[in-house]
């Protein structure tokens, strides 16, 4: 904030008052220098723990590295193999895209529906909000993944209920055709954090717009489509971007439910799980690094695509 520093430099030395650390710093090294000093704790962490390893992994992606020996430069070999001769890469991209394209829209729709319901000035709103948020806190944990395994296995709760209606279900999590969908359901069930954000967004919509619509005889459904949804598009946009990135990065549920194999028959071989297998199962750190950079590009592509299309459907009217 430029005003602040102007004000401070305008104050000059004040007798009998010790200048604060910030004032002394600004005087000594200028506002930009002072900013860096205060940024340092975060910046150091970013450089040492994020940027450094990220660049190193970029280097590793051009090598053959098994963790025990030294990395050996192989040029574009890893990338060539991924592009031309890796059926598991193709399989994992297919699984991951299916997961993202199904779970993100369904989760957002579910979150929005619950948020609209909760926004009607219910009694005990905070309690309901907390209850609905709970799965999101637990969702990525190992315990829930294990619970899911129990629910959808051959003699699990789901088949117990289906059995009441005379339906004899398979073991859903270990049948190739259904395994991925149990993970989609798990993702949808964790609708808590987009719901909270939707709820905050709904609160921002001025009530008089609805009153005016009411006067004009618009039905509730029409109000939702013509008022709520358009005014909520910035929030929907935010949630969609964040949830898409999250979905691409999903790992724990597939890892636990398939026992780390991505099975049955690669049905739950998420991209991150394949990456993990290559890195820590078969010790191909170079290859795994190349896979990680490709994932970064894929996510960047989807995010850029969202931002480019945003101007056609996201309305910022203030």
């Amino acid at each position, binding site marked *: 904030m430029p005003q602040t520093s102007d004000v401070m430099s305008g104050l000059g030395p004040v007798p009998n008052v010790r200048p604060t650390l910030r004032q002394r710093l600004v005087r000594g090294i200028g506002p930009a220098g002072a900013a860096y000093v205060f940024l340092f704790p975060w910046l150091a962490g970013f450089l040492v723990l994020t940027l450094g390893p990220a660049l190193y992994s970029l280097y590793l992606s051009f090598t053959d590295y098994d963790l025990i020996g030294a990395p050996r430069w192989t040029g574009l070999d890893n990338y060539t193999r991924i592009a031309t001769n890796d059926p598991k890469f193709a399989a994992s991209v297919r699984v991951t895209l299916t997961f993202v394209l199904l779970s993100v829209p369904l989760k957002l729709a579910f979150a929005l529906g619950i948020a609209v319901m909760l926004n009607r000035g219910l009694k005990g709103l905070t309690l309901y909000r907390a209850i609905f948020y709970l799965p999101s806190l637990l969702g990525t944990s190992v315990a829930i993944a294990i619970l899911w395994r129990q629910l959808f296995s051959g003699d699990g709760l789901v088949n117990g209920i289906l059995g009441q209606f005379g339906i004899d279900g398979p*073991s859903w999590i270990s*049948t190739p055709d259904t395994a991925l969908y149990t993970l989609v359901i798990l993702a949808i069930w964790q609708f808590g954090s987009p719901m909270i954000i939707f709820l905050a967004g709904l609160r921002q919509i001025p009530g008089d717009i609805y009153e005016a619509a009411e006067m004009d005889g618009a039905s509730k459904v029409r109000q939702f489509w013509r008022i709520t949804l358009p005014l909520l598009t910035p929030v929907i946009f935010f949630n969609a971007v964040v949830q898409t990135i999250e979905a691409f990065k999903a790992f724990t549920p597939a890892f636990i439910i398939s026992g780390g194999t991505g099975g049955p*028959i690669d049905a739950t071989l998420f991209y991150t799980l394949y990456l993990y297998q290559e890195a820590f199962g078969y010790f191909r750190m170079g290859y795994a690094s190349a896979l990680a950079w490709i994932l970064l590009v894929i996510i960047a592509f989807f995010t850029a695509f969202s931002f480019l299309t945003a101007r056609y459907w996201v309305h910022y009217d203030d």
Partner: protein
Amino acid sequence: MSYTKPDRRALLAGTAALTLSSLVAPTIAAAQEDANLRLFWWGSTPRAERTYAVADQYMAENPNVTIEGETVGWADYWTRLATQVAGRNAPDVIQMDYRYIFEYARRGALADLSEYRNDALPLEGFEEASLQGGMVDDGLYGVSLGANSSATMIDADAFEAAGLEVPTGAMTYDAMADAVMQVVEATDYEYGMHDASGHEPQLENWLRQRGTPLYTDDGELGFTVEDATEWFEMWADLRERGVTVPPDQQALYQRSIETSAVTLGQAPVSFAHSNQLTGYRELNDSTITMIPLPLIEEGATGGHYRKPSQLFSVSSSAENPEAAAAFIDYFVTNPEAVEVLEVERGVPESTVAREELAPKLNEADQAQLEYIENLGDLAGPLPPPPPAGAGEVEALLIRVSEQVAFGQQTPAEGAEQLVSEAQSILSR
């Protein structure tokens, strides 16, 4: 670089001092030198308790040695170990698996223990054959902590309830299938046995009975598309007859005692490793007995082998490899250590240790010991260690066996895919 040439007198004095110290050093080293050893292994809680207890005993007898133990489960173990080795922070004593010892030894991560055989590592009671599992290129890079072999686990109570004699020796696959179907008819069990079409040890056993190795000495795939086709056809037939657990339930099996068909109550017969008998008995209420894996035909031999269930290796970066070797020797031969460890890591290799232990074992452990000693013709020589990439081939076998079991591929198509993909993995 600046470097002052030492004068003659200093050189002489230095040489004398060195010679003197090298004469005195060994005796001091053995008695006095402080050693700090880090010990890393995978396994369950009972194993951790036993291992810590032996480390404590050793420290009490050797006050100059301190041992720090670390343990995790199998799945996390190899990640951690590789990361520590890469970070130049390897533990001194490393629990090794036969599958990985070649990779680690050839990449220079392990110390050759041959030079300690005369003093710190006499390994009393070890026969040459017992050392073989730890040999890499004529060097000793690991010491076997116990022997095991594949085995069939049987719910003996169910066999009795069906009015059948509980099998005590190896049976053919056909005889086994007939027997378990009688058990299924007479009891609550829905299915007869594990679908082992994706179990690598079982495929290897079956191949060896036919005189074919899983991998050749050169690390190539030992079997052909025809072999694999017959293998998948045999299991497809058993599956159709309802002998095996159906594929959606078999896919839940995670190579653990907890998820096996017997423990889950799906079938009266599972396939496992002999040192897991103890665990099977603990997790099941019914009486579990153990026989060798099924035979391809009456009188078939050589499918089994005595495998080092785990080994102890010493890191090449260990500060005091001699102290590490001495601890390993204590761990596998000292009667007090063996009495604590029992057969939890497999049957001890040292004949002295085995004789010491035999009368003190409970019935299940006794059965394990006898199982290994009485394999006879059923056991053949130790196969060469699996090549790099074998772990990936094992995962491939699981995937292809599932494709066949779920009907996505015929046995012949699966066999074709298994062999061609495995060859591509091994040549990578």
